[in-house]
């Protein structure tokens, strides 16, 4: 027990020793004064005092923590008690495991995507994302020149880095692999505070001075897969997009780049963008070319609000001084989890909704557990009464009951954690694999463990405190007289249990309504017609900059491949585009000037667009309303042509004839040659938006890559093979990636909401089941308690229907209260989620009705069994039992 004495202040011990010694001395002095010898007196004083050590122990006991033995004893007693009620224990542990597993799983996803987006970076909480805002307030990337000004002049930050994710071809002409890379400013690693695992990172000043030699930093995974973890990789030369680069460093294994949820394999300084993308020097020279993601580390002592103020002030200032292309622009500063670029943008809402639903379910689990424990505490009244009568202090009983609660919580959490480790791997349900090429398996690590432990503590307190307080209220006399006859369990307990059941049903109704709303919203979203026909269309992408193509070669290549695909058997038409509608990203836009249209001051004339090949509309089955499609002779030798959508005509040309009108973009005048029907280009849920198309032969922007689309009369993968064959015969060294059917592709952005809706429905089912258990428990308990009353009623002539009425009225009151509370809370919460719903009102009557109906049906089932038992009460049995 020596370690225990260290737990409380030395003072107590020292004071006691001094005091006791003083007592012994004084007593001995007295005895000596009465004529005893010093030795005898000391001995006599000790005899009269008693065992000093034992008394010392006893004296400090009031100050001690519960001793280890008594805690172990409590736990063993708790285990024995729980074994005596196996059904109750099983229900509690299983429901807890479900609630905790669901919550911990969603937490592990949330952490991987929102809370810990930069694994491997030091102090990531101080890193925020700086975004540029277009005049209409929409976010966009930041241009290299703007980034450099921000970095030079802003005072709120310790450092600022730019990055631009891009796919890169690694290897020589005969064999190349695609890897995700980032084009970064030279201080990228310094700002994120990442140390090299091997070699070094980029030298400071590379951004302005220019690069003497092409250098690259590689990630740990690529180092192992391509160089087998050999340290001689430093200094070796690797071809990236066919240009030789020297490897100067290896990033540590924990670091996966700056894009949440993605694995970046290599980093190239922005000064070398000319070598990576031969046609893309405008990336660093054009202030209007807003492609970079900017990460900024806050200076110590500067908070978000102050930094944001400086960013927006400076961005507005730059918009004024930098002339036409920046007019109306502004800037924003966001924590990474709120920023727009990356997978977290699409998953934020589903994850938060799921987190909320899990919290609801866990609350129901707690209410259910409290309810069951209360029932148990009531059944154990005699035990508690007796212990109190024998002198156990009340807090000792509370401790015992809380121990029982925490034993249950620990068992449930342990089981839940096992399920979590298994569930967490299912993140791919939410994330399409091609959107995040290597989404990390969210690790079930120390922070998930800590989260689960915190949940277990919360559960113990939430679910254990009411039964503990209630159980320890017993009075000796009451418990032994009243409880001795299987009494009513006390008004207090009954009220508390009824309140808990009402809360359970209310929470279940809320989760039912929530699941219904999101399910409905998903169905509405799916029912939206995208404006093109995705069936029987396959797609595959190529990146021509990877092969070092200039615009003439690229043009030739695209035309030849499209032609070859058309000649494949079964293919009815084929084309290419630099943006496929309903992609996860939004594509690129251009600032337009439209003849005959005067924009309002500050109006956003930056419109999204696609650069396409001939026959694109035919392949996608987008109807041409007026004019003509692009032709092969829409090339650099002819007047630039443009095709716009119907909303474009309605918004800018007041519905008049568009054909022949001039529009200025990319510094030249285009002529509108056709009008097509609207297509959902970014999200199915977007309102009609002005959009335009240009001929890829006239606007060559190769860094985004091109995607071939082909329509067949047969299955879509037949067309995918046709594309692969055609590309191979045109140039075997151009890698083809992302082959899939268009149907699968456009379904991908819906996968997050879909998986979330399914999980919500599952959670609502669990909630409903738990509420049913709670109601069943309360009703059947009260039927058992009132069996004598029932017996008397039957003896006095009550019919079974009368007994049913007695039971049903209790259930109806509880159900009614639960429904009212649940529907009211659902209506109140509706406003919070309304922005996440599409074409569904947060007060959707059918959903509310269905939720209420579901609850009523389940409540009927839960009441039915005890009600039948009540109707079958045999008066003689019931009375004799007493």
């Amino acid at each position: 027990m020596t370690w225990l004495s260290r737990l409380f202040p030395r003072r107590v011990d020292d004071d006691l020793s001094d005091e006791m010694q003083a007592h012994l001395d004084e007593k001995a002095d007295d005895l000596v004064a009465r004529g005893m010898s010093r030795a005898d007196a000391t001995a006599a004083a000790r005899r009269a005092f008693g065992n000093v050590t034992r008394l010392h122990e006893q004296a400090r006991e009031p100050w001690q923590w519960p001793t280890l033995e008594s805690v172990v004893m409590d736990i063993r007693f708790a285990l024995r008690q729980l074994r005596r009620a196996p059904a109750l224990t099983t229900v509690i542990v299983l429901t807890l495991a479900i609630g905790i597993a669901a919550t911990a799983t969603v937490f592990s996803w949330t952490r991987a995507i929102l809370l810990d987006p930069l694994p491997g970076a030091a102090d990531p909480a101080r890193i925020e994302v700086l975004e540029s805002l277009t005049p209409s307030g929409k976010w966009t990337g930041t241009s290299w020149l703007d980034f450099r000004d921000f970095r030079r002049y802003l005072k709120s930050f310790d450092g600022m880095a730019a990055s631009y994710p891009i796919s890169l071809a690694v290897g020589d002409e005969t064999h190349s692999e695609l890897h995700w890379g980032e084009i970064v400013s030279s201080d990228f690693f310094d700002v994120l505070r990442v140390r090299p695992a091997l070699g070094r990172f980029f030298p400071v000043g590379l951004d302005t001075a220019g690069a003497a030699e092409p250098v690259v930093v590689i990630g740990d995974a690529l180092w192992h897969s391509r160089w087998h973890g050999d340290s001689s990789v430093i200094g070796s030369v690797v071809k990236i997009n066919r240009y030789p680069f020297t490897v100067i460093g290896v990033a540590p294994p924990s670091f996966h780049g700056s894009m949440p949820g993605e694995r970046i394999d290599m980093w190239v300084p922005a000064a070398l963008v000319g070598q990576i993308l031969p046609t893309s020097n405008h990336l660093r020279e054009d202030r209007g070319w807003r492609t970079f993601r900017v990460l900024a580390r806050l200076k110590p002592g500067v908070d978000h609000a102050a930094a944001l103020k400086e960013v927006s002030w400076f961005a507005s200032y730059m918009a004024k001084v930098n002339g036409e292309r920046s007019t109306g622009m502004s800037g924003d500063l966001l924590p990474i989890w709120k920023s727009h670029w990356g997978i977290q943008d699409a998953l934020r809402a589903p994850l938060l909704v799921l987190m909320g639903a899990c919290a609801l379910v866990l609350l129901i689990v707690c209410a259910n557990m409290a309810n069951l424990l209360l029932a148990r505490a009531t059944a154990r009244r005699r035990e508690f009464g007796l212990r109190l009568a024998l002198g156990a202090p009340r807090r000792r009983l509370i401790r015992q009951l809380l121990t029982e609660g925490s034993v249950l919580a620990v068992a449930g959490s342990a089981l839940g954690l096992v399920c979590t480790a298994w569930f967490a791997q299912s993140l791919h349900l939410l994330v399409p694999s091609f959107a995040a090429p290597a989404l990390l398996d969210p690790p079930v690590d120390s922070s998930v463990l800590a989260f689960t432990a915190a949940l277990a503590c919360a559960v113990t307190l939430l679910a254990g405190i009411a039964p503990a307080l209630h159980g320890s209220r017993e009075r000796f006399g009451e418990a032994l007289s009243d409880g001795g006859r299987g009494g009513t369990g006390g008004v207090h307990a009954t009220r508390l249990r009824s309140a808990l059941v009402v809360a359970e049903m209310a929470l279940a109704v809320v989760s039912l309504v929530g699941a219904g709303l999101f399910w409905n919203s998903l169905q509405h979203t799916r029912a939206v017609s995208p404006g093109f026909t995705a069936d029987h269309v396959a797609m595959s992408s190529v990146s021509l900059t990877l092969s070092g193509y200039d615009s003439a070669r690229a043009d030739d290549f695209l035309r030849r491949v499209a032609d070859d695909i058309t000649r494949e058997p079964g293919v009815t038409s084929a084309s290419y585009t630099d943006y496929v509608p309903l992609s996860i990203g939004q594509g690129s836009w251009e600032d337009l000037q439209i003849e005959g249209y005067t924009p309002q001051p500050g109006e956003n004339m930056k419109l999204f667009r696609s650069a396409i090949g001939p026959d694109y509309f035919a392949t996608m089955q987008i109807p041409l309303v007026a004019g003509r499609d692009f032709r092969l002779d829409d090339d650099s030798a002819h007047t630039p042509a443009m095709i716009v959508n119907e909303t474009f005509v309605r918004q800018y040309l007041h519905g008049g004839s568009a054909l022949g009108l001039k529009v200025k973009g990319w510094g030249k005048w285009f002529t509108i040659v056709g009008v097509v029907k609207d297509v959902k280009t970014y999200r199915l849920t977007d309102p009609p938006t002005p959009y335009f198309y240009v001929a890829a032969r006239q606007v060559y922007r190769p860094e985004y890559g091109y995607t071939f689309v082909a329509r067949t009369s047969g299955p879509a993968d037949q067309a995918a093979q046709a594309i692969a064959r055609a590309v191979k015969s045109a140039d075997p060294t151009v890698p083809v990636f992302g082959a899939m059917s268009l149907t699968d592709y456009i379904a991908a952005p819906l996968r997050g909401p879909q998986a979330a809706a399914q999980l919500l429905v599952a959670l609502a089912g669990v909630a409903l089941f738990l509420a049913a258990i709670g109601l069943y428990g309360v009703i059947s308990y009260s039927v058992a308690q009132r069996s004598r009353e029932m017996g008397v009623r039957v003896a006095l002539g009550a019919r079974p229907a009368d007994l049913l009425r007695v039971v049903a009225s209790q259930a109806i009151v509880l159900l009614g209260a639960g429904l009212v509370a649940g529907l009211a809370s659902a209506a109140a919460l509706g406003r919070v989620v309304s922005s996440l719903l599409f074409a569904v009102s947060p007060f959707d009557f059918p959903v509310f009705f269905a939720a209420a109906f579901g609850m009523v049906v389940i409540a009927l089932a839960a009441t039915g069994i005890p009600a039948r038992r009540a109707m079958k009460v045999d008066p003689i049995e019931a009375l004799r039992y007493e």
Partner: protein
Amino acid sequence: MSDVSARDLFPGALEMMILRLLKQERMHGYALVQRIQQASRNLLQVEEGSLYPALQRLLKQGLVDAEWDVSSTNRRVRVYRITPAGAKHLSREVSSFTRMFQGIHLILADGTP
């Protein structure tokens, strides 16, 4: 000293006597033992050391205060004083004990069930 008289006469009795004596004046542990023996005319054999666990319990419950002082014999001793809460506790306990003693006494004196 036998085990029967070891700690307490019955739960709370020693504490009550301590509170009662401290109500008259503040004193240290040894003085308390002396007073208990004098006042009870040595009828109560209290193991002297058992006073200290009792005092600690009272301290913990806030029924008494303690401070270090120097005794008349020039010794450094811890002197105890009753708190207002202690005084309230005492009067409550005394009346309940008195009733209990009366009950026991009636039965013992009469003897009929």
